[in-house]
């Protein structure tokens, strides 16, 4: 797929920034994201290629603005939707609920 993910050779992104003493996770939720990714993989919901493809299909604006583990969230959600475990409506409703809690 000729998606936004294939940035090799593109100009304008600036130098690759290397973080000194980089932690495994920058936020607590990133660790939970890793757990969810592995649990869904072990459950047989996706293989590594099925995991990668929805990340390529993300909205290009979202792709460029999202972090590594946010991309993982997108593909775990999409794969769970494709597998019939949750619906897009349920995922969106949960996002809205969490955003509401954050605003309160």
């Amino acid at each position, binding site marked *: 797929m*000729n998606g936004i993910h294939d940035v090799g050779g593109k100009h304008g992104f600036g130098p690759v920034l290397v973080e000194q003493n980089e932690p495994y996770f920058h936020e607590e939720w990133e660790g939970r994201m890793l757990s969810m990714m592995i649990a869904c993989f072990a*459950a047989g919901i996706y293989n*590594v290629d099925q995991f990668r493809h929805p990340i390529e299909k993300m909205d290009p604006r979202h792709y460029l603005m999202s972090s590594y583990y946010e991309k993982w969230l997108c593909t775990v959600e999409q794969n769970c939707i494709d597998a019939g475990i949750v619906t897009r409506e349920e995922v969106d409703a949960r996002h809205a609920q969490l955003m509401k809690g954050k605003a309160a």
Partner: protein
Amino acid sequence: MNMLTTDMVPTVLATGDPARVDVNVAPKFKAGDRVTVVNLNQVAHNRLPAYIRGKAGTVTFDHGVFVFPDTSAHRQGPKPQHVYTVVFTARELWGEAGHPQDRMYVDAWDDYLESAD
């Protein structure tokens, strides 16, 4: 549906999801062969970087047989095939912007390559 148990976690974290498969498939190429990369523009998944499409390079190493991502991502089977390291000159990839002594090494599945001879 399978379930991930606590005792499985260290193994899963250590090994990941290896795409190497123990299947006897004949390689199309060997180290030293000149190859051209196919000009693939499919909407389906692939792991072929755009900047090597249509470019000529040389096979430097045969890694063995691996699952093919293009079919695997779409539940169309593993289509096992060889993966090679192919070396390109920077000039081949980037024209005059490439340093004359730089080389780029890219791993590529058999289906991404054609003989350049």
